[in-house]
């Protein structure tokens, strides 16, 4: 629109605050993270020095880190699929004219606005063996007690359940928006044709929800790498790292072990993983644009 020298200056001036802030806290630190990963952490006895790829070798040889990566991948997959499924289900429930849909919608959405750190303590009560809610119910029904968070087999899935609980209602919103955009004529037409509910969903609704699903999946993937709040209260990554996640281990390395260089190395690897996720995103988004 404006294409003269003065407007060039204006444009740059307008962007400057955003650029400075973003550069300072996103781009520059990404770069310095990379730099620090090639140095050892300095202490009084052992000053920092250049060590090349030693930190990376340590990381790839670190069973805790590798377990955290594997956990994180499972955590991502196992939260995303049920979240999407439940979110679509919730959206369908709320979109249909069931009784009390406003209340139902509110119930679904409420976890979105609750701080993870606060609800973790409540979930701790749910999971506590014998005196916790789940066990109280299970014992009353004649089942035995289960050490939900104290068992390597169950602990990660317990955290996954919390994350699904937290996110599904959030994703529901997007599906709800998509559903409400389906032209009512289509529904009418389908009714007249005698199409079953299921058929309508499979042929009309579901394809329309696909782009949203893509958005939701990407969002959920990113979340699964950055949401570790509940670990601080519930498991601290244990038992024996069975619920450790990458970002939590980065926090531990930097602030419990005071090894910021190693933490930087892990951060670089995490950034790489995130980069791969975003490349996948761009490829898929490209496809989506071609579709239209």
């Amino acid at each position, binding site marked *: 629109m404006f294409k003269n020298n003065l407007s060039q200056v204006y444009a740059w001036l307008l962007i400057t605050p955003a650029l400075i802030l973003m550069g300072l806290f996103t781009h520059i630190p990404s770069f310095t993270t990379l730099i620090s990963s090639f140095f050892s952490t300095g*202490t009084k006895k052992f000053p920092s020095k250049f060590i090349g790829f030693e930190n990376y070798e340590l990381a790839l040889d670190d069973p805790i880190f590798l377990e955290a990566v594997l956990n994180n991948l499972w955590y991502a997959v196992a939260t995303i699929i049920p979240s999407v499924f439940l979110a679509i289900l919730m959206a369908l429930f709320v979109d249909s004219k069931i009784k009390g849909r406003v209340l139902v919608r509110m119930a679904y959405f409420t976890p979105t606005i609750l701080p993870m750190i606060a609800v973790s303590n409540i979930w701790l009560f749910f999971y506590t063996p014998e005196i916790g809610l789940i066990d109280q119910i299970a014992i009353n029904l004649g089942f035995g007690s289960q050490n939900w968070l*104290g068992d390597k087999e169950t602990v990660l899935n317990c955290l996954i359940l919390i994350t699904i609980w937290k996110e599904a209602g959030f994703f529901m919103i997007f599906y709800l928006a998509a559903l409400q955009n389906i032209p009512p004529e289509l529904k009418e037409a389908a009714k007249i044709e005698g199409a079953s509910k299921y058929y309508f969903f499979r042929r009309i609704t579901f394809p329309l929800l696909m782009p949203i699903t893509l958005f939701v999946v990407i969002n959920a993937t990113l979340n699964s790498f950055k949401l570790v709040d509940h670990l601080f209260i519930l*498991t601290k990554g244990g038992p024996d790292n069975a619920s450790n996640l990458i970002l939590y281990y980065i926090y531990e390395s930097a602030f419990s072990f005071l*090894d910021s260089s190693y933490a930087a190395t892990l951060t670089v690897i995490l950034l790489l993983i995130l980069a791969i996720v975003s490349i996948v995103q761009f490829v898929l988004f490209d496809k989506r644009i071609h579709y239209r």
Partner: protein
Amino acid sequence: MLKKIKISFIGLTTIVFVMSFATKLFSIELNMYYPVAVGGPLTKIVDGMVNDFERKNPDVKVNAIYAGNYNDARIKALAALKSGKPAQLSVMFSIDIYELIEQDAIVPFDDLVTSYEDKAWLYSFYPTLMENGVTDGKVWGIPFQRSTIVMYYNKDLFRKAGLNPNKPPNTWNELVSYGKKIKSSTNSWGVMIPSTGYPYWMFGALTMQNDQVLMNGDGNVTYFDHPNVVGALQFWHDLGNKHKVMPSGTIEWGTLRKNFLEGKTAIMWHSTGNLTTVKKNAKFDFGVAMLPASKRRGTPTGGGNFYIFKKSSEAEKKASMRLIKFMTSPEQAAHWSMATGYMGVSPASYQTSALTNYVKQFPPALVARDQLNYATAELSTFQTGRVRKLLDDAIQSALTGNKTPKSALKGAQKNAEKLLKRYK
């Protein structure tokens, strides 16, 4: 309504203003971080003691900042050193000593005591409590909120199981056989030993009972794969998996007290720092006893020490010394012990009339102190965070049945040696 908000807003700003002005009147201001790792309103108690100190030392203002658990307190205190509001002293984990020395963050108390009287003060505490605070022949930490692990037991459940309520298990074998009796005749577990939060600490008790310490005095050698250490972990594992007197898997440190108070377990091992809270909340007759013995009795000491940071002025260090002396004085130590269950840190604190009367009415308060005779230092090495985690993970992997105690501890020892190599 709006007017009300306005008034309270003005009130608030005035308070803030006056407060910021008032701080200027003190000649010295100290920031002190401290942790809490047991139940009860401990922050209120610390605040109360600090207020007492300020009343008696009007020239010093102390900001006591509660920073979470031991780990948080260390992180925050170290972080504060780099910020505009550094801490001059803090209560931190007694086992942080090597890490703090390596960071060059703290000064030894030997450099601060000059008079004969002060030097004597350094020797006024229980020697076992000083173990974690001394290295290189210097004193770096002064004991404050110190504990041992004790055995809380539910006398009612003992009676129900036909056991003598005044005869808690004295040996590992008795622990198992009593536990089995309780398990079969009541609806409760025999014993619970927490294995999250501070598993290495509980383990330190078991290994000591099996007559083996976990590390050397210089903090650069660990003994994780010693046969007695392996035996200790085997026993812990067997409690849950072979004898079935304890739930298998890990047991949560934070919820265990509730489990005990609900009568879900007849015995729990926990910090003596929980004593006052248990006393207040138990709806049944409970007892406190020393931990049972295998080859001998044993427990690690635990808890927090006072440290003074290097990055503070001479005047601030002097004021910090005054505060520490006050907080660890016999009267205050006695008060602290009664309010929390932590032990009095010096023999003199048990001679104060207040504590003498208290333990007469409530003998369990003495168990922790008596157990000091069998106590050892808590696991503390260079790279303490990582070494601790190695042991914690090994314990948890054995308890959850993922590795055998032997292979778990072997692995931990190997990795610990790798970490500690450069400190020899």
